[in-house]
């Protein structure tokens, strides 16, 4: 499988948008004030803030912790020297900001509790609470909470290269569970073909995945770019960023230029106005053509050819007439060096025929056809791109030409078919009859 070449590098800490300093308990503020008075440079020494110095007395001392918990693993978990916070997003957060419930004195008892992350990260908490992850965590205890993805004490911002949520690391982070057979088996009948597993494989083959793995683009979309980092939901859920009603905005966040072209297009207008086809099909959104996960590079021929079928699901008669033309036949045979729907109608800015901004409006046709037929002229573009010889009303010339050719075909085969068949039968008859009789017949 294709995967990112993740090499953790030195990090540059960028201040988070959320400032935990504004949420510090009074006691911490007092300590900080005291330090400030003593002239100790604030930020650099924050890991050494008195509250943490106090904690370090025990929690930095591995030997001291022996026997203080039920198992070696739990003992190891208690070992949290505060210097590990240096350079992390929480390096200005004191232990007591997250861990509370031990009263005023220490050594404290085992009743210490951790406060929820959302008490600071409010929005993320609200989003996560609505997610499938939250529901599954409660039901099956096998979905991630904050720490599962972000780490426990060592937490970095996503734009930090060493963060597990950095774009170049994030997909592997999601894949950890989403390719885990045991977890998948809980939710899918056929674990090997499950959407979750296939999604990861397809992602790396798609344009976004290759953007990450081949081009090394941190701006390339990862799982969380589309699925929302915290409010992860199935696409059919109204709250999902990938729901039909929301996906345009989700993709448009990066593909702004496409969004701007799409919105005033016939499809965009139909979407906004909730116009449906006679069969009840809604206007197409991004994911109708750009298939989930395997978002292929539009230059990829196979994808471009398959989109023609997609257009045909609503535009059936135009699809059929296109398939009757040379353009349509070459593309149907699997070759892309011919006009497909989007070559003439544009991909995202499809407009009605009578819209002067449409690429296929008569005033723009020469320019549109010239993309391939360099010397296309006014006369040249009189070509019926959707000419249908079975349509007598709209294309009488084509219809009668077809009638003439069919008559010629039927006539020729009718005459010579009969001719050959009778000849064949006659020869067999002659051969089976005695030569004497034949001679007699001839003589008569």
């Amino acid at each position, binding site marked *: 499988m294709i995967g990112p070449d993740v090499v953790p590098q030195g990090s540059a800490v960028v201040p988070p948008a959320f400032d935990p300093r504004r949420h510090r308990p009074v006691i911490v503020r007092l300590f900080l004030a005291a330090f400030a008075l003593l002239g100790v440079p604030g930020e650099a020494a924050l890991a050494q803030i008195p509250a943490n110095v106090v904690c370090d007395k025990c929690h930095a001392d591995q030997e001291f912790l022996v026997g203080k918990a039920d198992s070696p693993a739990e003992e190891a978990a208690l070992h949290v020297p505060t210097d590990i916070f240096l350079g992390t997003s929480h390096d200005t957060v004191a232990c007591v900001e997250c861990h509370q419930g031990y009263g005023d004195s220490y050594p404290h008892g085992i009743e210490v509790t951790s406060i929820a992350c959302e008490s600071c990260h409010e929005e993320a908490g609200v989003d996560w609470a609505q997610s499938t992850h939250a529901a599954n965590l409660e039901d099956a205890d096998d979905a991630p909470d904050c720490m599962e993805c972000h780490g426990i004490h060592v937490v970095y911002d996503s734009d930090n290269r060493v963060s597990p949520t950095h774009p170049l690391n994030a997909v592997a982070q999601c894949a950890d569970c989403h390719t885990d057979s045991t977890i998948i088996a809980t939710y899918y009948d056929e674990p090997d073909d499950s959407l979750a597993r296939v999604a990861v494989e397809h992602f790396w083959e798609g344009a976004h995945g290759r953007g990450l793995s081949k081009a090394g683009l941190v701006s390339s979309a990862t799982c969380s770019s589309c699925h929302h980092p915290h409010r992860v939901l199935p696409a059919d859920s109204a709250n999902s960023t990938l729901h039909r009603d929301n996906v345009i905005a989700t993709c448009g966040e990066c593909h702004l230029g496409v969004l701007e072209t799409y919105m005033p297009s016939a499809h965009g207008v139909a979407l906004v106005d909730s116009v449906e086809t006679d069969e009840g099909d809604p206007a197409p959104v991004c994911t109708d053509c750009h298939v989930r996960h395997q978002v292929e590079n539009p230059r990829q021929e196979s994808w471009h050819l398959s989109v023609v079928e997609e257009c045909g699901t609503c535009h059936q008669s135009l699809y059929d007439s296109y398939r009757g033309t040379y353009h349509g036949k070459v593309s149907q045979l699997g070759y892309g060096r011919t006009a497909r729907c989007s070559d003439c109608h544009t991909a995202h800015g499809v407009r009605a025929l009578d819209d002067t901004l449409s690429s296929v409006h008569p005033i723009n046709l020469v320019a549109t056809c010239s993309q391939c037929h360099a010397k296309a002229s006014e006369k040249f573009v009189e070509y019926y791109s959707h000419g249908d010889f079975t349509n007598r009303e709209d294309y009488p010339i084509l219809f009668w030409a077809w009638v003439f050719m069919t008559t*010629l075909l039927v006539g020729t085969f009718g005459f010579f078919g009969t001719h050959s068949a009778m000849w*064949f039968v006659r020869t067999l008859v002659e051969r089976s009859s005695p030569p004497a009789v034949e001679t007699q017949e001839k003589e008569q």
Partner: protein
Amino acid sequence: MKTPVASSDRGQGPYLRRFSNLDRGLHLAVIISFFGLVMTGIPLHFSHTRWAQAIMRLHGGADSSGFIHRVCAIITFGYFFTHIGSVFVRAARSDNWKSFFWGPNSMVPQPKDVRDIFQMFKWFFGKGPPPQFDRFSYFEKFDYWAVFWGVAIIGGSGLLLWFPEFFASFLPGWSFNLATIIHGDEALLALGFIFTIHFFNGQLRPEKFPVDVVIFTGRARAEYMKEEHPLEYERAEREGRLAELEVPAPGRALYLWSVIAGMSLVALGFSLVVIIILTALFAH
């Protein structure tokens, strides 16, 4: 001696020349270009089928398919004009140029051809003997003129589609729609005709089965000529030209290759017709 597999080489008598080397060569050019055109063109007509897609892949895709199609088109125009030129050159050199355009040696339909058709159908119904043909039977003449019609119609419409930008300087764009229909349907007629009727007349009918290589070797035994073209044989006999027509038997390699080519082309053409008929019946 074993009976030769090719009907043109069966029976008694010396070998007589029937086709000139030029005509043999031109017919070979027709075969090569026609099969090239058919194999690269027919997938477009049946683009919705897997077999058409497989044939395209075999050619190396749409681009190379188009290239082969155009090369074969050039060969087609080449043999077409070479033949017309050769007719006039041969007529000019001949003592009797009129015989090229009228009479028993001419390709031009004669009143006798019409009578022959009626005679043929009478024979089909057992109401008389089969017609006696001269140098060219009416069905051979039909095949000949069908090529003229075909090259003009398919070739003309093909040129339109080959150079659309040029032709659009004086023709409306919808002429390409028209050309597409005519080109495709006429091609279907041509291949259907060649692969069934022409092959039946030339090779598959009981008298000739399984193969007739006279067009490849250019010669046939006297007995074959007496059966297939009795009037021509009698004429030659009467005019004392038989000795002049006499040629040695075809070389072994020429004969073998002719048999192989004849039978393979019939098999290939016939298979294609079967596939097309099955497609028309079940895949539309």
